[in-house]
């Protein structure tokens, strides 16, 4: 087992370096002069050179890559050339908001997707199944950002039920940080008003973000449930007079949870990617918004940093799933 984990970890490290190389290559085909931008529109030539030297932009490319690589591995993602701020520092500040949003969105996808998948399986090929299929196909096809705008338009502006954007009301103070996740911190600090407020703010962006994952979870659950319902032990249970409700809710659901969990791991990365669309719509101060704002200003270091962070989180999630599978299924370990 230890060897298996080690091998996987080694692979993880190699992939990370590969990703850094890709990002570095991409960022160095840029046409503009980053130093001139950082120096500001009115800067003199000498001012530009000051910046160029400060950011190491006057070194040859391989040297720049080596510097970048060693810096990244030490957790230093460089500085934003537009704001002069430290990228690692900024990412750490914005990541909890994104993490919280992704977690809630995932929870929503599971809590809505699993029952819908079950229902579709139980009512297979009937009206309800078709209706659910439409929901699931639609939630893939709906552009996330457009869904977000629709939710804002109807739920916030027309009905006034939920706030338009942000993490908290304008004047509400964040609970003193423990985990840096507002929902969790508010509960830990016993600030239930803040918790409700944070919850009200997170629901719409979470719905918009969860749409594609919802579709996947519905599909997987439906398929899995159909299979399970035909298996011997279910048939036996039914013959023993165990109620249909109990069969589906307990036995079948338990079996269908395994592929659902795998799906969650897979979707985690995609959801992190989706934040670049959703956070902008809902003014959600996370890394997606940060990446987009930097991207439209050709500020590469933050874009690279955010991409690396998202990529690394995704890799890490898959790594952990691999390990979990290896632990659950010894055959997999030996096959490696």
């Amino acid at each position, binding site marked *: 087992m230890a060897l298996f984990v080690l091998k996987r970890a080694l692979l993880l490290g190699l992939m990370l370096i590969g990703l850094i190389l890709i990002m570095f290559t991409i960022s160095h085909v840029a*046409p*503009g*002069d*980053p130093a*001139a*931008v950082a*120096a*500001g*529109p*009115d*800067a*003199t030539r*000498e*001012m530009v050179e*000051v*910046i160029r030297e400060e950011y190491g932009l006057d070194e040859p490319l391989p040297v720049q890559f080596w510097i970048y690589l060693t810096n990244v591995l030490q957790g230093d993602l460089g500085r*934003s050339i*537009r*704001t*002069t*701020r430290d990228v690692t520092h*900024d990412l750490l*500040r*914005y990541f909890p908001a994104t993490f919280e949003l992704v977690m809630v969105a995932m929870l929503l996808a599971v*809590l*809505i997707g699993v*029952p*819908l998948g079950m*229902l579709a399986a*139980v*009512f297979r090929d009937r009206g309800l199944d078709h209706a659910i299929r439409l929901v699931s196909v639609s939630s893939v096809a709906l552009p996330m950002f457009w869904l977000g705008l629709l939710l*804002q338009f109807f739920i*916030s*502006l027309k009905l*006034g*039920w*939920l706030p*338009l*954007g*942000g*993490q908290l009301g*304008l*004047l509400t103070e*964040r609970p003193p940080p423990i985990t840096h996740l507002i929902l969790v911190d508010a509960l830990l600090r016993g600030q239930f008003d803040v918790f*409700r407020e944070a*919850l*009200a703010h*997170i*629901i719409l962006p979470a719905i918009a973000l969860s749409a594609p994952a919802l579709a996947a979870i519905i599909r997987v659950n439906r398929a899995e449930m159909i299979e399970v319902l035909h298996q011997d032990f279910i048939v036996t249970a039914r013959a023993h007079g165990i*109620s*249909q*409700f109990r069969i589906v*809710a307990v036995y079948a659901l338990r079996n269908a949870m395994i592929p659902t969990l795998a799906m969650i791991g897979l979707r985690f990365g995609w959801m992190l990617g989706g934040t670049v669309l959703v956070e*902008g719509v809902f*003014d959600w*101060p996370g890394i997606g*918004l940060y990446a987009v704002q930097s991207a*439209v*200003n*050709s500020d590469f270091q933050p874009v690279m940093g955010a991409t690396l962070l998202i990529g690394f989180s995704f890799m890490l999630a898959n790594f952990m799933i691999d390990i979990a599978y290896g632990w659950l299924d010894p055959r997999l370990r030996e096959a490696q």
Partner: protein
Amino acid sequence: MQLHPRRFARLAALLTAAVLVAGGPAAETAQAFERKGDKFILVFGGRQPVPQLDPSQKYDWSTRMMQQALYDALVKYEGDPPEIKPWLAERWEVSPDAKVWTFHLVKTAKFHNGDPVDAEAVRFSFERTLKINKGPAWMLSSVLKPEGIKVVDPHTIRFELTDPFAPFLSFVPWWYVMNPKQVLANQDGDDLGQKWLTDNAAGSGPFRIKRWEQGVLYELEAVPDYWKGWRQEKPLAGVIYKLIREAASQKAALQRGEADIVEGLSPEDFDIVAKMPGIKVENHPGMTTFGIKFNVQQPPMDDINLRKAVAHAFDYEAFLKIYNGNAKLQTSPFPFATKGHIDVPGFTRQDLDKARAYLAKSRYPDGGIELEYVYVQGLEEERKMGLVLIDNLKPLNISVKMVPLTWPNMTARGAKLESSPDLMAIFATPVATDPDAVAFQYHKESWGKYYGTSYYDNEKVWSLIEKGRRVADWSERAPIYAEIQKMITADQPEIFGMLANRRWAMRDYVKGFQFSPVRFTGEVDLYTLEIGE
């Protein structure tokens, strides 16, 4: 199959409902403004963050709004037309050759930590900005060296410039004074406190930092015993600058009273909110000119007749339509609020007959060329102007290719004569009211800067610009700048466009708003605001 569909349906519905109900009725809207005791906290909804607060490193509208609230300078711009008011300096003198400037400081000024604001602090701050050589450094770095800053006594400071520089005073309001002790105590290596001042302040201004949540909001609290005192009866307890990036959210926040002032709405939205009860719109002619710069040294735009043809074909009224009438057409290369502005006689307006006549005289009598129009990607108004341009030049058989670029790529294109595009959309805000701040954009030294992408080439104008800097006496300077305005107009290095109005929408209980065109778009002097009942 023996199913009990209703039960499953109920289970699923319950699960789903549990999720939805959790956040249902929690959306109580905030009250109009926050009270703190019997005082108020004003909420400003803005779109641009303040990632770098250091006055020696950066300025843009949102940054400077915060800097102006946290720091003081020797003098301050106030009013419309903008006047330079004594601030940390109670009076000043200048030598007749505009080379030596002496400022006498008030004796009562204190930094937030209680330290006095003395001549040494002023010297340190100017030197720091010059040494770091970022942000506002360019304004004075050509004439001011650290050795030239002399502390005469604790309340007198003298600047001995390397060359005569009449506009000196007009830049001084943007050189904020920092507390040397605080800055040096927080140095990281020898960075002169650059890292620390990014998110902290060491000033003497009317406000100090309370909360600084980068990317979310910035809260200032008023300094009750501000050395300059408060003019209003009931000063604010503080200001929250909340980042609201979407226009729809800004509008909704204002409407619900969650924000007291918002900026940056679309022209249509300003018109809509102006009609809402309880909301007023401040609407003032600004100092930001919009022009479409020609590259006058590269074909085809090196042909003055072609430039004149294009400029006469342009539908200037479209500007007014785009801004729903809230803009003013330029009548000179200089903005109206610039000192010495004149209405240049016979300023270019749309006239298709003239346009055709000029085109006939040019190297391209039948048109048949394609011009490249470069603008900032994502900037709505510039995009619309491009569409107008396409439309207007069709009768001349000239086509236009729209090339949106990000600002960095755009300035990179403009930085070289060869790559500077035929047409480039530029909003330019002079940082000072002195005419030199605008005139110098047409000097050779400005070539390659974003406002110098036309590579304007007229030695007579250049020598006039240089001459204007060397005299301190305004009555001598005024005619020079009148001449400069006429000469630049005649050369048509760009389509001289318009000045859009600056607008803010605010709740009607917000009082004390003072507009000054020399501040940037969106920038508000928070010091004078108050909330009336």
